[in-house]
């Protein structure tokens, strides 16, 4: 009886000595768990079960989704190609290669891509950055984008935003491209094309001479040359000068 009592007590004491250690370990690690979700591995051994799964995914370096020449994504409208050549004023106006050219413009209804009112963005909705793109100029200083003919919105003439950076990423020029006007111009003909979804026509349109950004450009230095037709699509060609 006493023998078993001694054994019992001995075992009990051993048991009771070890249990608090386990409890303390759990508790201590629980207090340090605040570090787990801020970037370090969750396998810090706290009371949360360590992740035990087949390895993966294996991340690969991916360029910004802006780096693309076809910027249409889900936007529809008259086919439009934008060819921009960059020349360097600091080098006898020769072509500047290796420059980053960002462009963005509104869709046929006058809307820019941006975060919507809802707080959630859908990861599979890759069109969230529509009509924005980035290309690097080639040996001829040229970049080309496939897009749709922009629409317009209240207070502004049709335009394309441009932001040119040198190869190191330093901003060289932030500017806008304007469009030729007139009854046979692409702007007039495209905006009349309800078949292609342009519903506003030219009612309430702000022409270049009244546009806050373009009204000073009487020589049309910011205006691209536009050729083509509504059915075949249009091509805009422009040369921009930077001091690189």
């Amino acid at each position, binding site marked *: 009886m006493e023998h078993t009592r001694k054994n019992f007590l001995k075992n009990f004491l051993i048991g009771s000595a070890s249990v608090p250690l386990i409890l303390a370990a759990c508790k201590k690690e629980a207090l340090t*768990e605040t570090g787990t*979700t801020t970037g*370090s591995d969750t396998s810090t051994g706290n009371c949360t079960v*360590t992740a035990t799964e087949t390895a993966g995914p294996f991340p690969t370096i991916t360029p910004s989704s802006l780096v693309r020449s076809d910027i249409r994504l889900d936007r529809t409208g008259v086919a439009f190609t934008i060819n921009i050549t960059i020349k360097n004023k600091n080098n006898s106006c020769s072509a500047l290669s290796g420059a980053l050219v960002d462009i963005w413009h509104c869709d046929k209804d006058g809307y820019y891509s941006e975060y919507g009112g809802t707080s959630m963005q859908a990861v599979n909705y890759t069109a969230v950055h529509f009509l*924005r793109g980035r290309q690097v100029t080639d040996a001829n200083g040229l970049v080309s984008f496939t897009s749709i003919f922009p629409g317009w919105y209240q207070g502004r003439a049709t335009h394309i935003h441009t932001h040119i*950076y040198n190869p190191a990423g330093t901003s060289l020029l932030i500017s806008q491209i304007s469009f030729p006007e007139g009854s046979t111009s692409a702007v007039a003909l495209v905006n009349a094309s309800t078949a292609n979804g342009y519903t506003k026509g030219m009612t309430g349109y702000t022409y270049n001479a009244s546009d806050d950004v373009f009204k000073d450009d009487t020589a049309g230095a910011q205006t691209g040359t536009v050729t083509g037709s509504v059915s075949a699509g249009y091509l805009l060609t422009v040369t921009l000068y930077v001091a690189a």
Partner: protein
Amino acid sequence: MPKRIIRLCYRKIIDVSSQKTWDKYVFESTYAEFLLQVQFYNQEKKYNSFAEVLLNTPAAEKLHFLVSAAVTGYLQQLGGRVPDITDNLGKHSLTFKNYRFEMVNSNIKNKASHQVAINFFSEPLTWHETIGNYLLVSDPDSEKQDDHILTSLLQLQPFLSICSLKEETI
């Protein structure tokens, strides 16, 4: 009897102390994109920090959206699974289709202060009950196997929250 459908939100913070490869790629990629995009809102080069640019140029609010272009490729590499959060079986069973990217802090002259957040919104889950510090949840669309449904236990933890609630009467 009402059925409660919730969405969990995990706000993943990525900054200079992040160790995982994916996190580091996102850190580098978003900092590079920030350096490009911020120049549009800081043309007089008066400010160095994201906070100052945002304070002085309200339109710089667009930077959350603009810099997010740098993460879309990385988000697709996650295969629809919310990172870091494991259920009580040690698996990344929480799935997402929606996210929102945030610039938290950054500085043109100090890469170490760059900090971004990716808010992962889980797919809807039925919240059955809370057991201690664990949520007992299940996929609302999962079929009943006989008369039971498959569930999982998720621990409540920092940066994980219930961000939406819907009550449905069955």
